[in-house]
């Protein structure tokens, strides 16, 4: 495994690029890419089954591509309520679905290999500007705090509801909207307080680093290069 965080993240990003470049409906190559991901996952001690199951969470987002099944012209393989389901449209939809699923697995695997602090280090090693890195760091840091606040607000709402009737979807959506609004105001307040805490410890608007990001070693570059050649070989039309 690569020890350099930046190269690990770079490898994950290039995997996504190669995956995105695969031709539509090229099932054998998509299978090879899935196999590659699972082998790497197994080698790193991560269960491919768990990765695959967790990544199913992206499926609803991929359904946005479902209209392709009806709108892409071509021969139909079936009819649904009088609308033809085209073969090229279905291939495109399935390819998008598989790419999204594999992409999510690659993302999860990278996140589990790096963890939060190393992910930030990786972004810094890949040259993300320090100001953007600070913003990402703050976002990740306060995601947990906002989640806890949301949980508390939800509990407080539930504690005051009678529980005797099942509220409508619309009523729930309206309440969630109100909570989101309160959360935004609270987040702005917290943002002010965090800024004061930064200022009180000397923050002067410039980003500073204790150490410059370390460059990869030759062996790590070689491993990265070999992985790229391997993915090129997998996606090449022989």
């Amino acid at each position, binding site marked *: 495994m690569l020890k350099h965080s930046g190269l690990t993240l770079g490898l994950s990003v290039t995997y996504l690029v190669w995956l995105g470049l695969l031709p539509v409906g090229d099932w054998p190559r998509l299978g090879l890419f899935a196999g590659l991901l699972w082998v790497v996952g197994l080698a790193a001690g991560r269960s491919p089954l768990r990765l695959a199951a967790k990544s199913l969470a992206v499926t609803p987002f991929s359904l946005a591509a479902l209209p392709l099944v009806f709108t892409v012209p071509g021969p139909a393989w079936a009819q649904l309520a009088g609308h033809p389901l085209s073969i090229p449209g279905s291939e495109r939809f399935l390819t998008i679905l598989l790419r999204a699923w594999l992409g999510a697995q690659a993302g999860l695997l990278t996140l589990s290999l790096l963890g939060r*602090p190393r992910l930030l280090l990786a972004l810094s090693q890949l040259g993300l500007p320090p100001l953007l890195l600070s913003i990402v760091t703050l976002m*990740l*840091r*306060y995601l947990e705090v906002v989640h806890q606040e949301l949980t508390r607000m939800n509990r407080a709402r539930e504690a005051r509801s009678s529980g005797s009737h099942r509220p409508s979807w619309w009523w729930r959506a309206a309440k969630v909207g109100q909570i989101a609004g309160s959360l935004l105001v609270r987040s702005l307040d917290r943002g002010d*307080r965090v800024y004061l805490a930064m*200022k009180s410890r*000397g923050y002067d608007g410039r980003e500073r680093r204790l150490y410059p990001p370390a460059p990869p070693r030759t062996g790590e570059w070689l491993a990265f290069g070999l992985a790229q050649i391997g993915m090129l070989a997998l996606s090449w039309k022989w």
Partner: protein
Amino acid sequence: MVTVEDLCFHYGSREVLKNVAFRLPVGAKVGLLGPNGAGKSTLLLHLNGILQGQGKIVIDGLTLEAKSLPQIRQKVGLVFQDPDDQLFCSSVFEDVAYGPLYQGLPAAEVEERVSRALAAVGMEEARQRSSHQLSGGEKKRVALATVLSMQPSLLALDEPTSGLDPRARRSLIELLRSLPNTMLVATHDLALLEELLEDALVLDGGQLVFQGKTADLLADRERLERHGLVA
């Protein structure tokens, strides 16, 4: 030595601090009391130059003004009430290193200061942990370490024991007792006041209405009731 003279501050038309004046000798541990909205947190923010009202603040012979701000912020370690406001980096190490880094210290010295500050609060093993993984008591300790690493002469603490269970509270009081720094502690916790802080200041409606020995304040039940310090 900390000297505050005729400090006044307005939030819009509301006068929050009115001619506040006091002195803290080196090494003094002083409680800052008062009902909610009395101006305690506002006063602490002034000591660090975060808020700037009218009047004069002198820390270790250095008058607080725009050009002395970097040195003043090094001398006054401000610890906020909610440690989640204080711990904004991705790891404990980065949070504790933040102040020394902005003091422009070399990397080796920053490392050393982080190690010493974490050792002082008994959190060395949490060095690489994320702040969100810490318990409430641990967060308070690390929040304290974030300013100890700057080696301040004055610690300005806002409600350090709020939200802590009895064991974590006891442990934090012992920790504060062991630190040699001058301290100004804003608190509603009269037990903390009695145990740790020899002197007390009472703010009410933005005015300093008492300064003296903690024992004298605690013995004066009528005064405590008048300023909302006991029910």
